[in-house]
């Protein structure tokens, strides 16, 4: 590993640990008192939004294709993980961390498999057509989940149109670590030969193929990874909210995810990392104070989205990445020159 990289990685690791300690300080010491549980929830929401928005950005920003069906992949992750953990906890009592890990694994893999199966035929299409296929897939998943209630296999949970009684194991400590790992994996994927190939395909499919890149394989792989992490987000959601309703994962939800990707900046993971928690948790926070705000939330997003498209189509970060090490470097250099003067 190059020396400079080592330094950058170290800075990022420290930042991650600081973030963790900060959350710990807020929630584990109980300084927020009664409201602690509420804010705790907001943080978890912000974190699973971050995962799914980043996963969608893989497609939108780096592959250059749109998915308006990411809520569908999320619901697959949510339902698959919830079924498995509910079945397991009926048989044996497992520690919550184990149950959580099982949920994440099952949810991600299930969504990844479906993503792979959908991706193979669908990725022959591109642009508007692919986008519409993702909508169709998500709608099919939603309709199927709404109509074929999962038969009551166990006594403890009620299955059917709404799926209640899911173990609440999405503790924010676990979720935080999961989020960091997910982002790290996606970051490494983009900054590798795979990511380079992917961006090349986005820039020019034919030139990419003429440079020896297997376009279909790269696209399917990326689509699978994207669906995989959407599944992760779904598993976290299911084990935080504990009751699943198929209508939650509708077209509007998918558009909301896409809107956040675009507002944060398509092709900028850091843009998504900044935008997702703000745009998911902040409105909830505002409607906590001003209840009427809830119905205005999506309207305001939509207006901002259109305005951003007209005036700055590249979004908040516009494809650029925000880099903590670089910022520190600038900061310390400034300090150093100031010191000399």
């Amino acid at each position: 590993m190059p020396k400079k990289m080592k330094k950058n990685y170290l800075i990022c690791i420290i930042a991650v640990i600081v973030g963790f300690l900060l959350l710990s300080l807020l929630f584990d010491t109980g300084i927020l008192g009664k409201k602690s549980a509420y804010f705790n929830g907001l943080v978890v929401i912000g974190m699973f939004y971050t995962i799914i928005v980043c996963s969608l950005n893989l497609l939108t920003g780096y592959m250059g294709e749109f998915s308006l069906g990411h809520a569908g992949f999320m619901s697959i992750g949510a339902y698959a993980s919830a079924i498995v953990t509910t079945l397991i906890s009926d048989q044996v009592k497992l520690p919550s961390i184990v149950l959580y890990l099982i949920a994440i694994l099952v949810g991600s893999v299930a969504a990844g498999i479906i993503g792979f199966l959908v991706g193979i035929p669908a990725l022959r299409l591109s642009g508007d057509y692919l986008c519409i296929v993702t909508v169709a897939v998500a709608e099919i998943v939603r309709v199927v989940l709404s109509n074929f209630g999962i038969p009551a296999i166990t006594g403890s949970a009620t299955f059917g149109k709404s799926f209640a009684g899911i173990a609440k194991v999405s503790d924010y400590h676990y979720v935080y670590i999961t989020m960091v790992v997910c982002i790290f994996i996606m970051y490494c994927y983009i900054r590798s030969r795979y990511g380079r190939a992917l961006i090349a395909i986005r820039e020019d499919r034919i030139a990419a193929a003429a440079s020896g890149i297997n376009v279909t394989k790269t696209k399917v792989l990326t689509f699978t990874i994207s669906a995989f992490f959407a599944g992760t987000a779904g598993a976290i959601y299911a084990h935080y909210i504990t009751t699943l309703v198929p209508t939650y994962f509708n077209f509007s939800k998918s558009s909301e995810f896409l809107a956040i990707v675009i507002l944060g900046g398509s092709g900028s993971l850091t843009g998504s990392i900044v935008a997702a928690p703000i745009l998911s948790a902040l409105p909830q926070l505002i409607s906590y104070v001003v209840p009427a705000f809830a119905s205005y939330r999506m309207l305001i997003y939509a207006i901002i989205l259109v305005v951003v498209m007209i005036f700055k189509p590249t979004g908040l970060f516009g494809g650029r990445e925000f880099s903590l090490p670089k910022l520190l470097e600038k900061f310390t250099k400034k300090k150093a020159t100031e010191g000399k003067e």
Partner: protein
Amino acid sequence: MAKFIQSLANGLNLGSIYALTALGYTMVYGIIRMINFAHGDFIMVGGFTLFYLIPVMLKMGLPAWFAVFVAIIVCVFVGVMTEQIAYKPVRGQGSTTALITALGMSLVLENGALVLFGSAPRNVPPMFNLPAVAIGSVTIPGTTILTLVIGIVMMLLLTLFIKYTKLGRAMRAVPEDKIASTLVGINVNKIITITFAIGSGLAAVASMMYTTSYVSIKNELGITLGLKAFVAAVLGGIGSVPGAMIGGLLLGIIEIMVKVYMLPGTYEAVTYLILILVLLVRPSGLMGKKVNEKV
């Protein structure tokens, strides 16, 4: 057999609503290569206009269906404003920006309606009082027949308009080659605006047809109806006017038949499954043209 004819009539009824909506998608896509996600929401706007205006019309002693003309004006206004304010500035910015802007406008209208009218479904008062028609053992409601007739008339008019008028010819020329169209003296911007106006006007008619048959409307109508109609447009070959009509009618019949003869809850899944299959086998749809990328 009676059940079949009944279902067929219902299918054609639903299908003509899809077809009229699909026309709006296909005309806009044909001319500027953009999925106008907001088109479904124009129908929702038309629906709410009818909901609020029919009582007013009745109070003024006018026939209820007069409200349709106002709805057409409102929808054309909303459609043209959408085009002028949001779509025109992003034209030429690439398909990505266009897609997101359209999605954004759809969300603006949908959530604007949520703020204005709330999320509860509303029942639009009946506009027509027509006797049912009995064919053998089958009784078909008068409104169903009316919807069908209006749908067919609108499609015929539109076909004649596009085929034989100067404006219609210009509308066919612009998608072929924008620059060449400008060179032969066509005002491309004007044609695009007119296309939006016609599409939105059709949306208003579709909203009348929808509300006479299905009565209940809510702010999410645009999405549910819009997505289906878009499926119909793709099915028929997006950009093709006869394709949209055939796709719409076909989809309506399929949905009703699945509902009646197969699993009633899953007809929507069947719709989308058909869409996926059509796209995979024949991406250009039933009547669409195939385009090759130039290397």
